[in-house]
Every structure is written in structure tokens, then in C-alpha cells.
């Protein structure tokens, strides 16, 4: 089985936010929720870099560890998914997540959290593949159609890579060799400890 990973090449990302928009459109995510965001560092200064970030589908996922109702599970592909039928909207996964991936609609008492929503690696959820229920709760299940996440598929500079971790890191290594430098596989040290160091 492949181990699915995201990789954002900070030397290529041009902060167009198309990944954010494509994700919202593909999954019809409700108002106020963005499963992916683009962060710009040193904005307007020398060394400006942009990074697109969402759930990294960590190997030892902190969200999975702290969830009080144990609603997370990891697919054989290494994708971290959650069951919205079990989620109680406590927010603990957001406290634990290093990447700020979990998002919440303001649905609870006094504007507190509703059920958590996050990037699914376009792999849906525990409901039946391609069912209306699954689409409503988790968005489109592209993985079941044999497709990779939409954000990486349509990235204009191919800064955002998604897919089998070995293939992704090979592509990135070729790039680093070709241009003579690289900014490290950003976030990999935390999400996939032991695989590649930054």
C-alpha cells in the first residue's frame, strides 16, 4: 500500500490560493470553513515564501490521540479521516494539531464549535463511497475514483504535491538536485517523523 503524503515546495508556491478555492469548490465546504490555507512568510521582504497547508495526515496523529470520543481513524493509505457522527465538537483536535487543520462551524452554545471539518485527502469518510451522505459530510471522494487530491492536481506551478510519499519525495529530490538548493520538505519532520528531516 502507498503511504499518502502532502508536500509543498516553498520555492514554487506563488500564493495564488487556487488550492484553497479548488478545495472549497470540490467539496462544497460551508461558509467560513477553509480546509486548506496559504501562509506567506516574510511578506514583502527578502526571502518571501508561501506555503499551502492543510491536514498533513500525520503518522502518529495528535488529533487521533486526544479525541475524547475516538472518532479518528487512519486508512491503510495513511490518510487520517474522522467520523462526524461521533464528533461532539469539543475542539481538542485543534488544541493538539500542529498544523491548525481542524475547522469548526459556529454551531454550538454561545457560538462555540460545531462538528469538526478538515481535509480528507479527498478520501471522503466512513459512509458508503460516493453516497449523498458522504458528500454532505466530508465532500467528494476522489480517492475512490482513483484520483489524487484536487488541490495538488490543479496546482499551476506544481508546488503542492500529493500522493505516495516515495514518489512525492523523489520528485522533490530531483528538483532540489536540479536547482541546487531546496527549502526542505516543509512540515515532514513533524508529520512523518523518521522519513525525511527538514
Amino acid at each position, binding site marked *: 500500500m502507498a503511504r499518502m503524503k502532502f508536500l509543498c515546495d516553498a*520555492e514554487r508556491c506563488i500564493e495564488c*490560493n487556487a488550492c*484553497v478555492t479548488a478545495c472549497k469548490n470540490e467539496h462544497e465546504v460551508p461558509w467560513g470553513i*477553509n480546509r*486548506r*490555507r*496559504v*501562509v*506567506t*512568510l*516574510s*511578506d514583502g*521582504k*527578502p*526571502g518571501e*515564501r508561501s*506555503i499551502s*497547508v492543510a491536514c498533513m495526515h500525520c503518522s502518529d496523529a*495528535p488529533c487521533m*490521540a*486526544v*479525541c*475524547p*470520543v*475516538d*472518532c479518528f481513524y487512519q486508512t491503510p493509505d495513511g490518510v487520517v479521516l474522522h467520523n462526524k*457522527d*461521533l464528533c*461532539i*465538537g*469539543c*475542539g*481538542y483536535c*485543534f*488544541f*493538539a*494539531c*500542529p*498544523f*491548525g*487543520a481542524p*475547522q469548526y462551524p*459556529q454551531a*454550538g*452554545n*454561545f*457560538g*462555540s*464549535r460545531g462538528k469538526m471539518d478538515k481535509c480528507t485527502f479527498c478520501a471522503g469518510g466512513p459512509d458508503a463511497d460516493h453516497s449523498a451522505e458522504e458528500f454532505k459530510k466530508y465532500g467528494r471522494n476522489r480517492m475512490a475514483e482513483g484520483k489524487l487530491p484536487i488541490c495538488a492536481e490543479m496546482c499551476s506551478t506544481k508546488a503542492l504535491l500529493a500522493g505516495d510519499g516515495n514518489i512525492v519525495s523523489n520528485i522533490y529530490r530531483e528538483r532540489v538536485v536540479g*536547482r*541546487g*538548493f531546496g*527549502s*526542505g520538505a*516543509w*512540515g515532514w*519532520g*513533524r508529520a512523518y517523523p523518521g522519513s525525511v528531516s*527538514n
Partner: protein
Amino acid sequence: MMLHRLIAAIFFIALMLVSVTTINAQSVRPPGNAVNQSTDEQIGTSNTLGPDSQSKYWHDLRQGKSGLSTTGRSGGLLIQAQGEQWRLIRKNYIIKYSGWVLAAVLVILVLFFLIRGKIRLKGGRSGQTISRFSLPHRTAHWFMASIFIMLGLSGLILLLGRTALAPLIGKNVYSIFASAAMQGHNLFGPLFIVALVWMYYLFVPGNFFKMVDLKWILKGGGLIGGHASAGHYNFGEKVWFWAVAIVGLLISITGIILEFPWLSANLQLLQISTIVHAIGAVGLIAFALGHIYIGTIGMEGALDSMTTGDVDVNWAKEHHDLWYEEVTGEKSATHDQGETGHAQVYSQDKITGV
């Protein structure tokens, strides 16, 4: 007319261009004695990150350096490093030990009951009672007790449910419990603050520490045997009162922070709040177990003070002798000679025959 103006304009522009270029030519040329200070020439493309080195740039990010983002509630923060700490504290300390602490307290109480048994009135019931807690005191106490039990149960379900409950009843059923517990906990939380303030206001007189409390500690509170004098509240009751007041205040503050997450955008504050809230609450629940034990099956005649508000005269003499003397003005037989503890009278109590 038009032609004159056009010629004049062209002439004027030409004059401007000439003057500007001559001035620029002069200012750009370095003076003869100038020294070139710049020595670091950019070689290749490796240092595109500006003044920082590659490793420092990415190291800072891992330590929680922020950028800018136009989307997402998490904003420009790429990695929040303290989340891992929070996870470890919660999993490895709070959840692990809170279960053991509560279990240990229960075991100690059971053992204590088996060894020491119910603390009986030595003189039996006299049939005469003395007023100990007024109706507002009792109402405030039970109001707090109701809220405390509901909050304690729902909180423990959320804290320990995944470890203790989910394996027994299954994830799906446990999720129903957890959902109900969280909604109930959030609903009753603010009422705890109301109950806390009300109870503090009514119970604070007489709960300040005095010299007699030191003697009470030295005698082990009379739990092991012997007699320890006490005023209206003994040392144990005073510690319980202040534990509720101070820890209750901490729980209230952290609870407000957690219930209204939009009040503060500071994630670290929320993380610390969950830890303080859980430790404080488990401590209070452990204390409350002891309180409930000694108030019900642990001691004969103690529960009367919170049900009818009137306690047996013999109970007052045996457990709160100084208070009894203060109220009635007569010496109790159990009172040790030479002790001069002073208890504060907090209300107009009187002996009532039944």
C-alpha cells in the same frame, strides 16, 4: 495662439529633461575619495532567503513563527509546537492519574469505613436539637451540590470516557453520552459560578483559620481517636470551604475561557485552561467524595445539619464543642480544660426542644 503654446511647452519640457539628467549625472557619480563598503557579493542563487540562513529560516517556523494568511481561522501560524506538549500532559498525566486518584480515594474511604466504622455519638441522641444551618445556607448548599454533581459526572464522562466507558459500551453509544455530557456541561457551567458566589457569601463568616485549628491538626481531627475541639467549623471543613472557593474560582475562570472560545484567539491560553480545569476539577471531586462520605454514612448525626438544619445537642457537644458553648453559654462535658479557642457566632442560633 495654439502653435505658440505648443512650442513653449516643448521648450519647457526639453529644458526640464536637460536639467534633470545633468543633476542626476552629478549625484550618481561617487566622490573621488569614496570607498566601496559592500563586500558580500551574491553568488549563485543559494541565498534567496535574504539575511537569514536556510536552516534558521525553517527552524524558526518549527518553533512557531507566524506568517500571513488571508484564509482559515488558524491564520498565519504554520506549526504550533506546544500542541504536542499539551497532548502528552493530557494523555500521560491528567487522564492516567485522575482515574487512579479517584479510585484511590474511593478505596481509602471503603477501608476507613471497614476499619473505623461509622463515627457514632458517644452519648447517643439527646432528643434536643440546636440550629446549625439556616434555610438560605441549606438552599445554597444543595443548589451547589446539584450543579456540582451534574458538572462532575458530565466532566468525568468527557475526561475518562474514552478509557473507561467506550470499551464497555462501544464507540457509538459512548458518543451519545459524550455529546450529552458536553452540552450539559456547557449549560450548567455558568450556574456553578452563580452557586459559588452565593455559597461563598453565606459561608465565609466563621471559616477563617484560628489557633484552635492548629490544635485540631495536632490531634488528627479526632478521626483516629481522642477529642479535638472545634468551633462552628473545624479545620477540615475550613480547608474544604477554601478549596471550593479558590479552586472553584480557578475552574470558573478557565471554564469561561473554554466555553467561549472566541473570547481569546490565544491557543496556548485554551490549552493551559483545559489542564488547569481538569486538575482542579479532579481535585475537587476527590475532596467531595470525602465530604459526602463524612456527611452521610461516615458520621452519625452529621446529615441533620443540612437536611433539617438542626443538629442533636450531643452531636454539637462532641464535634463542635466551642461552637456549642458560644451559642448556649454552657460548658460541654467533652471540652478539654484550659483551651481558650474562640469561635465566631455567625447567626442567631438557639436551642430548640423537640
